[in-house]
């Protein structure tokens, strides 16, 4: 029988199809889940829409860093089975992302995003693959993070309009429940419901809906850390609403903000090094 290593590389490469779960981009995820505590004040004098927009502005304001690097870990659980992935991530601005996987099965596999183009590199075959079209909706390395979401660089306030639905207490924390709606066709989740902590202005829970109105997944922010004066979610649990007993724990370690990341890091040369 032919080397199973080759089989694994080939099937790993072609298995970029994903479940219905779609995760926000790393950057968008961060900006959806943290705010600058200083600026996280609702605008005065506005109605519900004005207050909602102000909260949205504060959430987006958390994206006020020029660059970020961190070690990301994903633990995908389905019933008793667990799959773990780990990667180093570097991002600069809204359109430059570089990932390198370090878990044993995917070690050395890299992803480069420049603008809306995504390239994958598989070192064991020295193969560079361009991801485009409908393949962008498939999972990155078989994970629950889609290429499309990695490529998204839109801020929430640019993509959504917001309204406050109600006040609600979640895990003992009084929250405002916001509904975000978008008519854009290039948005992964046209409707999002956010439970935003009144005090820290941090979303504690996010529900993501398809355009049909079906709940696709729910995100729970399990841990938040203060990093360089900003509150960032460092542990997030994502539950698939369509599949039983399926969830992913996403965590970020060694987070650094506003670091110098040269242009050379976001290039074909670095991708294939």
């Amino acid at each position, binding site marked *: *029988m*032919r080397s199973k290593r*080759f089989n694994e590389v080939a099937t790993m490469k072609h298995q970029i199809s994903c479940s219905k779960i779609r995760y926000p981009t790393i950057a968008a995820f961060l900006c959806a889940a943290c705010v600058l505590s200083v600026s996280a004040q609702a605008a005065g004098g506005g109605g519900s829409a004005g207050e909602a927009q102000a909260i949205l502005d504060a959430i987006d304001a958390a994206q006020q860093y020029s660059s970020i690097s961190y070690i990301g870990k994903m633990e995908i*659980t389905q019933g008793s089975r667990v799959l773990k992935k780990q990667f180093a991530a570097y991002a600069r601005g809204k359109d430059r992302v570089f990932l390198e996987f370090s878990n044993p099965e995917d070690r050395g596999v890299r992803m480069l995003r420049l603008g809306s183009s995504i390239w994958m590199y598989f070192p064991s075959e020295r193969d560079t693959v361009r991801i485009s079209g409908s393949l962008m909706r498939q999972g990155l390395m078989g994970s629950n993070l889609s290429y499309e979401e990695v490529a998204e660089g839109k801020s929430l306030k640019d993509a959504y309009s917001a309204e406050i639905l109600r006040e609600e207490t979640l895990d003992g924390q009084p929250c405002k429940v916001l509904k975000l709606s978008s008519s854009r066709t290039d948005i992964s989740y046209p409707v999002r419901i956010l439970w935003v902590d009144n005090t820290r202005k941090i979303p504690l829970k996010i529900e993501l809906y398809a355009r049909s109105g079906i709940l696709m997944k729910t995100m729970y922010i399990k841990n938040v850390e203060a990093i360089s004066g900003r509150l960032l979610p460092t542990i997030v649990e994502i539950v698939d609403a369509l599949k039983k007993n399926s969830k992913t724990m996403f965590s970020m370690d060694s987070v650094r903000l506003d670091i110098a990341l040269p242009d050379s890091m976001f290039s074909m040369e670095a991708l294939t090094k």
Partner: protein
Amino acid sequence: MNPSARCRKGSPAAARNRARSFTYLCACGRALGRTFSAAMALGVFMAFLPHGVQAQSAGLVFTTTTGAAAGLMATGTPRSAGFDEEIVLNGRLQTGPLRVTALASVSFSTGFASLGRWSVFSSGQTLRWSWPAWTSGSTAPDTLATVEIQELAAAISGTLAHTGFRIELGKFPLKWGVGKAFRPSDIFKTMDYASLIPTSKGLPAARLALFTSQLSRFEAVASIDGNSTLTAGARYLTALGDTAALAASVGWRRQAGAADEYSGSFEGQIDAGIFTPYTELSVRTDGSSAYAITMLGSSLAAGDVTLWLEGQASFGPATMNARLFLLGTWKTSELTSISAPIFWFNDARTLSASALAQFQGILDGRVDLYATGNWLFSAVPVGFLWKLGAYWARSLLTY
């Protein structure tokens, strides 16, 4: 091998089989020992590197794949079953501008699994040893041990006149083209169709790459295989905005007993809504005649399903051959997927259809179950060959 002789306990044939199996086990054990010794030496070396040149990154991944297979490999032969174990060590060392990579495998297989490995051996392969030794046309053994260095290469990177470059020497995978199954522009002929989903093989080669912009590069490659076939070529790749990627290449191939062959090729990929069509065209000549090979394909993804469809046709003065490839993948859950690759080789009048189910997270590894059927329409009556297999694979990072 006489089945009757094999079945009789205490018979000379049975004793010979036991002796051969023991010999193979010893050979496999020696090879495994050498491989692990090399890995240990690599680890010790990395640990004692002077601080000033301490590796920026290093890693050694150990992968074990255990499984069983059964089937019918050739018409007129009995169906059989067998066991297969493969250990792969994948190492990488990066220190400054220097990168060293190595990938070695040791395998032991019996019965049908042995037959499967034996059937893909060829004289063109390099750095592969087997017990018993392979010769062209020889019968597959009941037990087989192999050691292969699939990759051993060193690369050095740098900048010259504001242009990044990389020089790579050794044995490493070479792959030109954009096709998933068919790559007409791949002048190195490294595609391996024995796997359910085609993969590329490594060759001894030298490569020079110049990175002319963020997403463009020029590369020149020269390789030689186990048959002393020389291949050399130059290729330029670039992206056109966010919607397309192109490549153009020229090549030369010298094979013993044949005229030198020259080629010119083109590769393209473009975004077209939900489709991503791609194409290749390669024109080849040996000076007296010319032929062309063209490939057209596209991918489509919707929800949990991804589809690839490729067609390849060759046009020459004598014949026109066509091949088709269809691959569907359905991710049934987060950790489970089903793939179905289908091939049609018109020149051989052969249809190959497979189903592969993969289950992640089983005993910290992955379980693969597959079934393959091959219909040989060139035979009368139509021949049918089949394979079934079950494998478990797990990777560990040892350093």
